[in-house]
C-alpha cells in the first residue's frame, strides 16, 4: 500500500523534533515561520534589506514564507517580479554591489538555472576580481527537495553545484531553529549565500526560545550523540538519519551530525567524530555522483584515514533524473530503511 510521504513522515518527524533537544521551550513554530521571523527581524533591523522574487507579495510566496510581509514593509521592500529568474538574481547582485541587501527567492531551485550566469560568473567572482573593492551581500533563498511527485524538473537538489563554485556560501538548515538562526547570519553576511530549504520541512514544528538567536556558519550540529558510527546527513535526511538511529538504538550507537552549512564546512566536528567511531556514512537526497558526500569522504580520508575501521560510504540520490511515479521516486533517494541496512552492514565489516 502506498502511504502519503507528506503526511505520515511529517507527523513522525514533527513529534521527533519536538522531543529531542536538551531544553524544553514553550514556543512552537514551523520551519516556515522560523524563516519569516528571521526575515522580519533583519528587515526591521536594517532598512536596506529587501525581498525580490516571484509571487512573494500579495500571496506571500508559493510556500508561504513571506506571508504578511507586504503589509508590514510595503511594495518597495517586498518586490514581486515577473517570471525572470536571470533578472531577479542579476538585479539582486547589482543592487547588492551598490549598497543594499537583497534576499532573492527562487521558487524551485531547478529554476536557478536561469540565473546561473548571475550566480556563478558574477556574484561568486566579483569580490575576488575586484580585490575586495566590490561586495555582494546577497542571499538567494531557494526551495528544493523531492517526495511530492513533481518529476524531474521540480525535484533536483543542487547544493553540490554551488559547493563547486568558489565564492558562494551554502546553507541547508534541517529544522526551524537552524533555519532562523542561519538565515539571520546569511542576511548579515557580506558574501553571496545560497540558502536551500527543503519543501518537506516547511510544515515541521519545533520548540524554540522566546528571545531571538543566531546560528553561525561553519559550525556543524551533533544532532545525536553516539559511539559506533558517524552519520553525516543534510537537510531532510537529518530526520531520516535520526529516525534510523532511534530504531537502531540498543543495537548500534549512532552519532548523527548535520553540517548545517556546506560552505564553510565544519570538517573538524566530522573528523573528531570519525576518530571516535571509526566509521562514516554520509546521507543526502541529492545525486551521489560528484556530490556533497564525495567531498566529505575525501576530506575525512585525507584527515583521518587511519582511524577508519570500515570503508566510508555515501547514500545519495540515484544517478537519474527524478521520476514522477511515487514508487520510483521513493526508490531513487535514500530512505530510513536504507540507512538502517547500510549502518548494520558497515558495523559488521
Amino acid at each position, binding site marked *: 500500500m*502506498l*502511504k*502519503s*510521504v*507528506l*503526511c*505520515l513522515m511529517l507527523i513522525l518527524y514533527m513529534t521527533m523534533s519536538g522531543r529531542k533537544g536538551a531544553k524544553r521551550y514553550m514556543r512552537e513554530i514551523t520551519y516556515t515561520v522560523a524563516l519569516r521571523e528571521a526575515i522580519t527581524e533583519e528587515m526591521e533591523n536594517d532598512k536596506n534589506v529587501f525581498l525580490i522574487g*516571484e*509571487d512573494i507579495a*500579495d*500571496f506571500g510566496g*508559493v510556500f508561504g514564507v513571506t506571508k504578511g510581509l507586504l503589509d508590514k514593509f510595503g511594495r518597495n521592500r517586498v518586490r*514581486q517580479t*515577473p*517570471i*525572470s529568474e*536571470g*533578472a531577479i538574481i542579476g538585479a539582486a547582485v547589482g543592487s547588492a554591489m551598490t549598497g543594499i541587501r537583497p534576499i532573492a527567492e527562487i521558487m524551485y531551485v*531547478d*529554476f536557478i538555472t*536561469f540565473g546561473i550566469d548571475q550566480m556563478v560568473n558574477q556574484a561568486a567572482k566579483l569580490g575576488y576580481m575586484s580585490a575586495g573593492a566590490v561586495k555582494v551581500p546577497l542571499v538567494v533563498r531557494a526551495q528544493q527537495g523531492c517526495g*511530492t*511527485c*513533481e*518529476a*524531474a*524538473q*521540480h525535484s533536483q537538489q543542487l547544493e553540490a553545484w554551488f559547493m563547486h563554485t568558489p565564492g558562494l556560501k551554502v546553507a541547508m538548515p534541517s529544522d526551524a531553529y537552524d533555519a532562523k538562526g542561519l538565515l539571520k547570519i546569511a542576511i548579515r553576511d557580506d558574501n553571496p549565500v545560497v540558502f536551500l530549504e527543503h519543501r518537506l520541512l516547511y510544515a515541521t514544528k519545533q520548540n524554540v526560545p522566546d528571545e531571538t538567536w543566531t546560528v553561525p556558519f561553519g559550525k556543524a550540529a551533533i544532532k545525536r550523540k553516539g559511539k559506533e558510527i558517524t552519520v553525516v546527513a543534510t537537510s531532510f535526511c537529518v530526520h531520516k538519519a535520526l529516525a534510523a538511529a532511534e530504531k537502531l538504538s540498543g543495537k548500534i550507537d549512532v552519532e548523527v551530525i548535520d553540517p548545517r552549512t556546506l560552505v564553510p564546512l565544519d570538517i573538524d566536528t566530522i573528523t573528531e567524530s570519525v576518530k571516535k567511531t571509526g566509521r562514516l556514512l554520509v546521507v543526502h537526497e541529492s545525486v551521489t555522483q560528484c556530490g556533497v558526500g564525495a567531498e566529505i569522504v575525501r576530506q575525512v580520508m585525507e584527515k583521518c584515514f587511519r582511524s577508519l575501521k570500515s570503508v566510508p560510504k555515501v547514500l545519495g540520490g*540515484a*544517478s*537519474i*533524473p527524478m*521520476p*514522477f*511515479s*511515487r*514508487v*520510483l521516486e521513493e*526508490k*531513487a533517494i535514500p530512505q530510513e530503511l536504507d540507512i538502517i541496512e547500510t549502518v548494520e552492514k558497515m558495523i559488521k565489516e
Partner: protein
Amino acid sequence: MTCQKFAKCLNRRLISEKAKINILRMMYLIREFEIASRKMFKEHQARGEFLGALHNCDGQEAIAASMGAIFRKDDYVFTTFRGHGHSLAKGAEPKKMMAELLGRAAGYSKGRGGSMHMFDPSIGLMGGNGVVGGGLTLAVGAALSAQYRNTDQVCICFFGDGAAATGAFHEALNMAGLWRLPVIYICENNLWAATTPINFGCPIKDISDRAAGYNIPGKSIDGNDVYIVYETLNEAVIKARKGEGATLIECKTYRHHPHCMVMPEHRPKDEKQAWLAKDPISCFENMLLQENILCREEQQKLRKDVRDLVAEAVDYAEKCPLPDVNTLYDYVWA
C-alpha cells in the same frame, strides 16, 4: 474583450460543418478530461496518495481545439505544464494520458513524467514542460530542423503570459525572426501567472506588440472565439508552410480554475464570473446551434460519448500496474 486590433471576421463557411463538429467534440474532450483528472486526483489524495501538481486548462479549449483542426500529424507542438488540452488536440490518447497522470507503467512516459511531461514524437507532440518558457527555444530548434530538412512542417509553441517575461522569449523570437523559421508562438494570456496578475508581469497591453521587434507579424485576439482563433492560426500556418516565417499570436483567455490543484483561488470573484460567462465551449455550442449545424440531441450525445470515453480512460488508468522499480535506471541513456 474581443481585441479591436483584429476586426476582420472569418467567413464561417470556410470551415466545413464536419470540422466544426470535430472542434466542438475536441473542446468537450478536453473539458471532460480536466474534470475527470481533478476528480481522480482528489480521490487519490483522500486516500493519502499525493500525485504532484495538476495544472488544468478548462476555459482555454478554443485555442487547443483550433490548433488540432488545422495542424497536420507531422507538425510539431511544444506545450507547457498546462498541456493536457494541447496534447489531446494533437492526437494523444486519453487512456495513455490518464495512466501517466497516475504514474502508471502504461502511461506516455511510463510513469517517469506525470501530468507535465507527456511526449509522443510519432504525432508531433514534443512534450509538456515544467519550466516556464522551457519550450520557447526548443521550438526554434524544431522549426530549424524542418527548414534544414527542407520539409513544410510547421512548429507551434504554446506558452503563458508569464513566460513572455522570460529571457528565452527574446532569444527565441529574435532567432525565429532572423532566420524566418516556420514557427508559430501562441501566447495563451489568461491574465495570471500563478498568483501574479498580468500588469505585474508585463508593462504593455498587448504582448503581440513585441513582434515588431523581431520583424514578424503579431496579433492579439479573443482566444475564446473559435472562429477568430481558427482564422488567425490558419493564416499563420499557411505563411509558415510557404517559408514566409514566424508569427506571434496572443490569445486573450482565462483559466476557470486556480493555478494548480494545490493552490487556493485568489483571483477576484467578479473577474472570474465575467470570464465564466464567456466560456468558449458554451459560446461555440450556441453558435453551432444557431447555424443549425447541431441540434440539442446531437450536442448532448456528442458530450456524453466524450464523457464515456474519458470515464473509460480513468478506469483503464486505475487498473494499470505501477512501474517495476527494477526499471529505475531505464531510459537514462538512449
